[in-house]
């Protein structure tokens, strides 16, 4: 059997996986009846529909011609997502300035053309701007520096 639309096949499998994840979470939520729905009613029906649509999509990909897979861009993707994760992890212990600095550092690896000097200048200016806007002007309760 030949896969005619790899894009749809992967999409369909992802939907089925999502449905499986949802089912694993529904656990003992009461289903109820159509006229007296329990907390599990909507999630169950929707998870089933997600799986069904995924299945149709996957099966269809074997019959109908469609798009090929595009390569995922990990070269840019990993540093970019990494930068967000680092910011989320460090904002509370380290404060706005250092967390943003780390964000710039990590995301620099996602840059199409890396220029360290430019990145440094830009990050200093932008962090200064962010502190001015959010902390000085808007008076938001952000930790600016590590505490103590």
């Amino acid at each position, binding site marked *: 059997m030949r896969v005619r639309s790899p894009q749809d096949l992967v999409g369909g499998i992802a939907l089925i996986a999502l449905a499986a994840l949802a089912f694993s979470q529904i656990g003992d939520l009461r289903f109820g009846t159509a006229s007296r729905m329990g907390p599990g009613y909507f999630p169950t029906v929707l998870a089933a529909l997600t799986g069904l649509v995924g299945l149709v999509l996957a099966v269809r990909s074997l019959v109908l011609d469609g798009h090929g897979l595009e390569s995922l861009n990990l070269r840019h993707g990993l540093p970019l997502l990494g930068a967000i994760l680092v910011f989320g992890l460090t904002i*509370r*212990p380290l404060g706005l300035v250092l967390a943003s600095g780390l964000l710039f550092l990590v995301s620099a690896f996602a840059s199409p053309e890396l220029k360290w000097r430019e990145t440094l200048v830009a990050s200093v200016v932008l962090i200064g701007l962010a502190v001015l806007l959010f902390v000085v002007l808007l*008076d938001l*309760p952000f930790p600016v520096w*590590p*505490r*103590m």
Partner: protein
Amino acid sequence: MRFSTLAVTAFALALGSAPALAENFPSRPVTMVVPFSAGGPTDTVARLVAQSMSQTLGQQVIVENVGGAGGTIGAGRVAKADPDGYTILLHHIGQATSATLYRKLAYDPKTDFAPIGLVTDVPMTIVAKKDFPAKDLKELVAYVKANPDKVTLANAGVGAASHLCGMLFMQALQTPLTTVPYKGTGPAMNDLVGGQVDLMCDQTTNTTGQIKGGAVKAYAVTTPTRVASLPDLPTTREAGLPGVEVAVWHGLYAPKGTPDAVVTKLNAALKVALKDATVKQRFAELGTEPVAEARATPKALGDFVGTEIDRWRPLIQAAGVYAD
């Protein structure tokens, strides 16, 4: 978090003793955590109190909104914060009900906090859609008992003040009603005004405007005394339903282990805030007033949290609803 705990410990050791810290308190801004999003009734109370406390303490008291999971995320953060008085919590009645509503709570509302004092009691009102047949609370009770299958009771979600008051109301009448839950008071009031549901019990903060505007019918206020903004409305006790007494009380807490001297300073600032003319006036506009000075104390709040946890536990357990 661990970094800062270490830092505080090191700092305290360097200074030799904790009281030295307390004497200089506060030497930097204090963060008042509100475990709900900005703009809600609790947030309003917090901001009014924080503004006055800033003046008294000579350091800014910054309100930080840490919403989510019925207030337990913000409360949990304060419970685990450094016990130095720089992170405090303003929470309402949910502090006591969460002990039962959340079976997997990561902190103990009773023992993980150093209470500072009670702040205010917001009264609640029993209201109905404007063409509801009953004229007064007596008729209402009779009507509900006679037609339990017809009457619907709205609330603003599990654990909300309106939910608690509703449970109390049904218990007092010994009559289970169809409860219609909403997400928040706004949509619930919308459907009450639109006549889609029959009854609700909610805070004066939300109902006063609708009552005065004639959009809903009011039957009683749930506090021992009448409220100034609705002088014609009888109390539940006067109207013959003494069991339904509930107010949305607000308390101020520091993490457990906060030095007594710091708690005393914070409490003194709270007491000043509760006498502040602006605070009083704004509270009055919200249909509430500061608590009496005797109740704005650490002991009063500590005892009250215990009493309230015990009061609501059987009710919540009987209803069988949990938020976790």
